[in-house]
């Protein structure tokens, strides 16, 4: 009854009245349960932090090679959101350990530090979620169509930055069309409906659409170039690449945004519980 772990400040053993002693016994179980719940909550936060870091590292590593497309739109904030997610994940892991130690020792100082740092981490993670969700909304088919027409195989670049972005876009589209057997954003007719930088250097009769839209054999040559130029089914790729672009980008944006949102809801509950617990500790 006397050496209660949640109150480490000393007091006169004999000075405590019986009334107070009974009250302590009743609330002892409550305090234990509170501690247990907070430790459990912090363990979950720690594990979610590791998962968030892993997920964000996966996204930042860009397995589908789509980063140059976003860089050229100057709208690559969903990658910024993933970067923030990596550091927030580490912070959540570290703070959850701090929280567990603070709860077990019932230290007001440690828990106050924990609460304040957790609030800062909360704010950063909130920024990451909102950024990922907002910038996902900018990624429409017309955005990629305009970029493809203006940059793919562009030959007269203004400066070094422009040249780099153009090369990135060209390489990415070539890879996309070859690996996903697709052509253009909506289809090969994108190249016919609009003029483009590609059209400046490749005439319409020989290249109604880029030769990467043709069905290739094992040596990366078109199996029938005339059939491809005519647009005969079976010799060219008639579907658009938009699904191959938007699929991974959507998964990234929603993965960062919704998982972060779930972690923050849980963290909200744990923080409220910690503040309640903190207010119950006396010096």
């Amino acid at each position: 009854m006397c050496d209660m772990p949640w109150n480490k400040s000393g007091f006169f053993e004999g000075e405590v009245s019986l009334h107070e002693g009974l009250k302590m016994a009743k609330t002892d179980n409550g305090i234990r349960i509170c501690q247990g719940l907070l430790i459990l909550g912090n363990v979950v936060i720690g594990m979610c932090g590791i998962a968030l870091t892993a997920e964000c590292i996966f996204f930042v590593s860009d397995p589908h090679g789509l980063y140059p497309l976003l860089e050229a739109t100057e709208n690559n904030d969903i990658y910024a959101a993933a970067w923030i997610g990596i550091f927030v994940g580490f912070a959540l892991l570290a703070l959850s350990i701090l929280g567990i130690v603070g709860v077990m020792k019932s230290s007001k100082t440690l828990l106050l530090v924990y609460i304040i740092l957790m609030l800062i981490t909360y704010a950063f993670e909130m920024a990451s979620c909102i950024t990922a969700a907002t910038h996902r909304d900018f990624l429409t088919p017309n955005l990629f169509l305009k970029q493809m027409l203006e940059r793919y195989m562009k030959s007269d670049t203004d400066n070094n930055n422009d040249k780099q972005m153009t090369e990135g876009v060209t390489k990415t589209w070539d890879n996309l069309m070859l690996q996903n057997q697709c052509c253009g954003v909506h289809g090969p007719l994108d190249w016919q409906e609009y003029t483009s930088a590609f059209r400046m250097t490749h005439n319409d009769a020989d290249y109604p659409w880029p030769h990467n839209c043709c069905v290739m054999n094992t040596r990366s040559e078109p199996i029938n170039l005339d059939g491809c130029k005519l647009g005969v089914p079976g010799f060219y790729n008639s579907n658009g690449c938009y699904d191959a672009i938007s699929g991974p980008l959507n998964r990234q944006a929603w993965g960062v945004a919704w998982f972060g949102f779930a972690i923050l809801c849980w963290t909200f509950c744990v923080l409220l519980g910690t503040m309640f617990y903190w207010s119950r500790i006396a010096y």
Partner: protein
Amino acid sequence: MHPLLLLLLATAHGLDKLSYKPTLVGGNVEGRMTGSTFVLEQPRCVFDSYSTANIWLVVATREGMDAFNDSAQPGMPEWSFQRFPTNTSAYLTLGAMQYHYGCPKPDRELTVLRVGSETDCADNISVPNCNGPLPGPGPYWVKFLALNGSEPTATTEWSGPITLKTAREPQSIPGTGGARSGAMIAITAILSVLLAILLAALLATLCSSEACGVGSFRPDAASIRRYNTHHVYDQPAARL
């Protein structure tokens, strides 16, 4: 008898007008009309009775169609591709022997003529029958002409007007920005509210302790009140 013979001779040298009308190839060929080419069906089973003839394609503008003279010769500069359409209003191209268009049409093959596919001879005046890319969106009219040596023996009807695609500028693509989705609004709103509640709770917690304002203990059931009944201060023995 002599007038009859003369009449027979006249028809032998006359021009047969066939009722065939050249058509574009069917819709499943996606390149049937591009910015500078179009694809026609081959005139199979049309020139069967002219087995020694050369079949030529005549491409003309409106003026060319009206003014076309069937005694055109393929090698002549008046009917060359390179002078089309500024100095001449029609040209002949895609010459082939009649046996290339044999009947019946082979079942599983695609039999087409792509007008405008040769780019290397487009500026070469020594190749007047070049099947070069068409210089503008048109409209163009085409017909087939069968020539036996230099004599025209048969001709089809003129096709309907063929107008090629005109490409638009990419700047005309509308709306490259997106609308706000419901999910993003939900995330922003809910997280903002939660953060506000947390900050309020933090303030309430800090102010309920002696950190701000009042400074007196609340008579709380779970907190222990310290008191010195024997007026003894700092007794080390009592500290456990």
